[in-house]
């Protein structure tokens, strides 16, 4: 480690590199015998939804199905928009902030784009 300036970065990089390697080795090692084909479950939410969409099944369909089963089993209780008053309040607040500020952010960005161009 000659480069004194980058010394701390290298420290972090090496430490985390080693941690990552060891964890990966452990994860692969401890997996033996638990071979299970979970298929699409390894995929991310985005890719999963895409493949689902390709098959014309959407998450909302799943939710509706689930709701129906819930209804069938006697539960009006948990409509999936459940949650306490606090969660409802934060939902309104955050959604409101995002929706209201978004046009201004876009317009501001376009303004800066025009002013900054070249």
């Amino acid at each position: 480690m000659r480069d004194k300036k980058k010394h701390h970065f290298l420290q972090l990089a090496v430490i985390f590199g080693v941690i990552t390697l060891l964890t990966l080795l452990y994860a692969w090692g401890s997996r033996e015998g638990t071979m299970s084909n979970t298929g699409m479950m390894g995929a991310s939410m985005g890719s999963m939804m895409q493949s689902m969409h390709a098959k014309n099944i959407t998450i909302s369909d799943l939710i509706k199905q689930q709701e129906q089963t819930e209804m069938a089993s006697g539960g009006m209780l948990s409509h999936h928009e459940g949650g306490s008053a606090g969660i409802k309040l934060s939902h309104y607040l955050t959604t409101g902030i995002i929706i209201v500020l978004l046009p201004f952010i876009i317009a501001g960005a376009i303004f800066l784009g025009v002013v900054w161009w070249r």
Partner: protein
Amino acid sequence: MNIRFDFVIHWLWTIVFALLTLSGLAMVGAKYGWILNYDIASADYVHRVLAAVYVLLTFISIAYEVVRAVKHEEKKLAWFIIGKSGYQLFTFITTLMFIITGAIIWVCMDSNMSATAFALYIHEKLTYIVVASVIWHIYAKCHALLWPKKPNTTDKKNVAGTK
């Protein structure tokens, strides 16, 4: 003590960004769930509340730059997150992408599944790119990691150790 506006924004931004990435990653899929011990409900809550904070910070930053542009202030703010060139431009563009795709996911989840899926895809891949870029950023600016000079022994030990 004179603390500058761009400095405050940079570090607030860093905190919010780290937590957004943490909670976002936990939701990517079963492969990633271990990051927050499969507590997706909390991850979702944290991600959505902080997304609002992030949008607010972005709005403030853009408003600040708009005012500066109107006043024709050309001086570059060393710590500012958005700007017209270099890494500042990069964060500006990626931030806009995060916010726009995030809002699409948010609003279209109930109505337009293909839009949601597409936005999720961009949102997720963008996360990987931006985390890599932040590591690079820490590398480029790693003088920030140096401890303040003090007349103590640790510095000398370091020098001795490298010989």
